[in-house]
């Protein structure tokens, strides 16, 4: 009994310590003297590997999710003769929920895991330590560009996801299921507000991007420098990031649907 209580205590202390350490780590990455001229090429390189290399999976997922939502929505709405509202259903569900959340989950799986593994390997092979020996700050040289690249590319990916999913859905709805094009778009445009729906979708994806990239970079930087430690860190990065995204999504939606 005492032993179990003790282990519970140890687990909570460890959790608090690691949360605190990751917070300190984040402030060290965020608040530092900007050296824009020198970090810009590094940022561009990371934007390529984090953002552009994630594009194919985002595009394919977006296309099929848009098409499936249109198909399912039409199937149900047609029972009530309300298939003219399909555009509204598709646009609202994609822009508010599916766009930010699915992009975040894919981003955590595609870019987050890669970042964790990369940084973890750098730590395991003592590249980070040797950088410090050469008086190059690894937080500036390795971590910061990856962090900012993730934060920038996540909303862009979510926006592209939204556009592709809506066009995929409209393709199924109009060209295949025979919903009238004019009503489809006009109902959609009447229902979707720029500030209420699109901007809050962007805010969601920014928050998700922040959380995912923070988790990924911290897990890599903090991993146990062995092969097993690296694999654990990579798994943890994806699992934690996905769970936090899903949880935060509920909180953010509650805030946005409330009088916010």
């Amino acid at each position, binding site marked *: 009994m005492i032993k179990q209580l003790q282990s519970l205590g140890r687990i909570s202390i460890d959790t608090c310590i690691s949360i605190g350490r990751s917070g300190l780590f984040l402030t060290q990455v965020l608040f530092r003297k900007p050296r824009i001229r020198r970090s810009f*090429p590094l940022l*561009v*390189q990371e*934007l*390529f590997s984090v*953002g*552009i290399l994630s*594009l194919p999976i985002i595009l394919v997922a977006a296309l099929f999710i848009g098409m499936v939502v249109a198909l399912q929505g039409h199937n149900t709405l047609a029972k*009530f*003769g*309300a298939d*003219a*509202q399909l555009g509204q259903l598709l*646009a609202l569900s994609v*822009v508010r929920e599916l766009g930010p959340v699915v992009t975040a989950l894919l981003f955590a799986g595609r870019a987050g895991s890669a970042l964790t593994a990369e940084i973890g390997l750098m730590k395991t092979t003592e590249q980070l330590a040797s950088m410090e020996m050469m008086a190059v700050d690894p937080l500036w040289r390795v971590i910061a560009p990856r962090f900012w690249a993730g934060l920038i*590319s996540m*909303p*862009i*990916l979510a*926006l*592209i996801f*939204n*556009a*592709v999913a*809506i066009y995929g859905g409209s393709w199924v709805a109009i060209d295949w299921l025979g919903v*009238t*094009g*004019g*009503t489809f*778009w*006009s*109902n*959609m*445009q*009447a229902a*979707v507000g*720029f500030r209420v729906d*699109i901007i809050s979708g962007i805010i969601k994806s920014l928050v998700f991007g922040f959380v995912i990239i923070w988790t990924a970079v911290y897990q890599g930087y903090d991993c146990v420098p062995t092969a097993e430690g690296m694999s654990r860190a990579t798994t943890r990065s994806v699992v934690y990031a996905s769970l936090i995204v899903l949880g935060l999504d509920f909180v953010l939606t509650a805030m946005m649907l409330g009088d916010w």
Partner: protein
Amino acid sequence: MNNKTVELLVGAFIIAGIAALLVLALKVSGLNYYPGQGTYQLTASFDNIGGLKVRAPVRLAGVQVGEVRAITIDPKTFKAVVTLAIDSKQNQLPVDTSANIQTEGLLGSNFIGLAPGYAEDFLKDNDRIEITHSALILENLIGQFLYSVNKK
């Protein structure tokens, strides 16, 4: 992959993001089902247009022949003036054609149904459709029905 290609691709990526934002924002203007050319315009005024929206379809015998281009208010008569863009292939509508606001099913959205008349002359660009029937407002009907039921 050399530096120039990477920079080029990143630039394209950022542009794609901005383009996606524009698509999402400007969907309000959206895809034009009936573009300016190939159509001619008619106007029709209604007492009440119900839930009719811009870009709602215009149907002749159930077949779409155009769409609603604009909805304004006539400040003198307080009637709603609806501008219709009709496919120029349908240029033989008689002048006594009537326009009715109808609903797709019980819960569906509104559209304009055209019912052709028997006149020999045809409607031309910017003509007015004189005979119109307003939207059927379900709530009003239910109200009237309840009122008449209570009187008995």
